[in-house]
C-alpha cells in the first residue's frame, strides 16, 4: 500500500541512563492509517510515542512529519537536543496527543480547554475557533458540558474533551497513549466509539492500547513492541490469526 507519508520514524533509540528503552524502532504512517501499538507493560510504548513529539528527547533517530524532518543537534555535553525549538513547537501543534490521564487544564472550562490551542498557539480568530469548538464538542457528545470544569466530569467525558481538544488543532497525526486505560470499564465504550469515528473519517492515528478489539477491528496496521523493539507488525487480520513469534503469542494469550 503506498500513500502519502504523514509520519515517518527512522531507527529511534532512547535510553534512560544506562537503560536502553527503545532500541531502534522505525515506523511509517501514511495519511489515514491507524496504527495500533501493542506491547507488555514496560515494553516502551509510551516512551516511543513521547519521543515522536519530543516530550522525551530521543538519543538518535529521525522523525519526519509530512516529509519535514525534526532537526536535532548535539549540545556541548554531547546530548541530542532539538536544533530549533520553534520548529519543534510548530511540529507539536500538528501532532496532537491524547494521554492516559486526560491531562485537561484543570483551571479552564471544557470550552476553554478546546479553545486554548487554536486561539493561543495557532492564533485562530476566537469567533471562528469557538464555532469549531462547539461543533467538536457536539461530535464527542458534550455540547451541554461546555462550561464545566474537568473535575466535575466523569473520566470518559474528560477523555472525550481531551479528544475534542486534540481535534481542535486540526492535527496531521494524532497520538493516543492508552486513552482508555484509566477509565472504569463502563466508560471505555464511549471513548472507543469516538475513536472509531475518527478512524472512519480518515484521521491518521497512532494508538497505544490494550484494547485488542480496537486493534483488530479498527487499525490498518498493528505493531507489537517487545523490550523496545518491533517484534511483529502487519495487518491485524494476519497478525491476530497467525502470530509468528513466541512473544506475541504469549502476549495475546495473556490479553485474552
Amino acid at each position: 500500500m503506498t500513500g502519502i507519508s504523514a509520519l515517518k520514524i527512522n531507527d529511534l533509540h532512547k535510553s534512560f541512563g544506562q537503560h536502553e528503552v527503545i532500541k531502534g524502532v522505525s515506523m511509517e504512517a501514511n495519511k489515514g492509517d491507524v496504527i495500533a501499538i501493542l506491547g507488555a507493560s514496560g515494553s516502551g510504548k509510551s516512551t516511543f510515542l513521547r519521543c515522536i513529539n519530543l516530550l522525551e528527547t530521543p538519543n538518535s533517530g529521525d522523525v519526519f512529519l509530512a516529509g519535514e524532518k525534526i532537526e536535532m543537534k548535539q549540545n556541548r555535553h554531547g546530548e541530542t537536543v532539538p536544533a530549533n525549538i520553534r520548529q519543534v513547537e510548530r511540529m507539536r501543534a500538528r501532532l496532537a496527543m491524547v494521554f492516559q490521564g486526560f491531562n485537561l487544564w484543570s483551571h479552564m472550562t471544557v470550552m476553554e480547554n478546546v479553545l486554548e490551542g487554536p486561539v493561543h498557539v495557532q492564533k485562530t480568530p476566537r469567533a471562528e475557533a469557538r464555532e469549531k469548538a462547539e461543533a467538536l464538542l457536539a461530535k464527542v457528545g458534550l455540547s451541554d458540558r461546555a462550561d464545566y470544569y474537568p473535575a466535575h466530569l466523569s473520566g470518559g467525558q474528560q477523555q472525550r474533551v481531551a479528544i475534542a481538544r486534540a481535534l481542535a488543532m486540526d492535527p496531521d497525526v494524532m497520538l493516543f497513549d492508552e486513552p482508555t486505560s484509566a477509565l472504569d470499564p463502563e466508560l471505555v465504550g464511549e471513548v472507543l466509539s469516538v475513536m472509531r469515528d475518527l478512524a472512519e473519517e480518515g484521521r491518521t492515528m497512532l494508538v497505544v492500547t490494550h484494547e485488542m478489539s480496537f486493534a483488530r477491528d479498527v487499525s490498518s496496521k498493528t505493531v507489537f513492541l517487545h523490550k523496545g523493539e518491533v517484534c511483529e507488525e502487519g495487518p491485524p487480520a494476519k497478525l491476530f490469526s497467525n502470530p509468528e513469534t513466541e512473544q506475541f503469542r504469549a502476549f495475546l494469550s495473556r490479553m485474552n
Partner: protein
Amino acid sequence: MENILSYIPLDISLIAENFDRFLYGVWTTLNLTVLALVFGGLLAIPMAIARASRHRVLSPLVWGYTYVLRGTPLLVQTYLIYYGLGQFEAVRQSWLWDPILSSAWWCALIAFTLNTSAYTAELLRGAIVDTPKGEVEAAIATGHSYGLRMRRIILPSAFRRAIPAYSNEVIFMLHGSVVASTITLQDILGVGRWLNGRYYLAYEGFITAAFLYFLIVFAITRVFRWIERRYLRHLTRRETTTATEMTPEPTR
C-alpha cells in the same frame, strides 16, 4: 448607657475623642500594607519563575535573596534601611536620600515590600512546581512555548492554588506592619502608643489598636473566602457520582 460605660474600665471618651487619629492610623497601616503587597507581589512573580526554573544563575540568586529576607526579622530589616543606610555619606549625598531614604514612610514601604516579596516568591514557587505534570505536558504537546505555557497554563493554575497560603501572607504582612510604629510612623499601633504615652494610660490605645487590627483581619478573611469560592471552584470535587445528575457547583 452612661452607667454601663462607667463599669467598663476603659476611658472610652478619650478613645472617642481621638478616633480621627485612629482612622488616620488605619489609613497609614492600610496604605503601607497594600502598597507593599502590590509591589512585593509584582516582584515575586518573576522571582518565583526564576526560582522554579533550573536556571544556573537566576535560581540560586533568588534563593539567596529569599533565604536572607526570610531568615531575618522584619524589624531588623526596617532598622537597617531607616537607620543603617543613613550612616553612609554617599547615601545621604545621593538623589535617593531626599525624597526617599530620609523618609520613614518610604523606608517602611521598601522594607515591607522586600520582605513580602521574599515570602510570596517562595509561596508562588511552590505552587508553580506543584503544577500537575500532565497539564504541563499537555501544553507542551499542544505546541505552547515556554513563555506561553507559563502565561496561559502554569501561572493561572499556580495563582489559584496559592490563594489560601497567600491569604496568610497578607495577614502576616498586616501584622508585621506594626514595625512602622517603631520608626515614628503613626500607623494603628503608632496612634495607640501615642495615646498611651500622652495620657499615661495603661492600655486604652493598645486595646483600640488590637480591635482595629482584628476588624481588618476579619475583612481580609471574608474577602479571601469570596475569592477562593470564585477561583477555586474548579478544584472542588463534584458531589454526585453519576455524570448525568451533575449540575455546576453552586456558588454558595
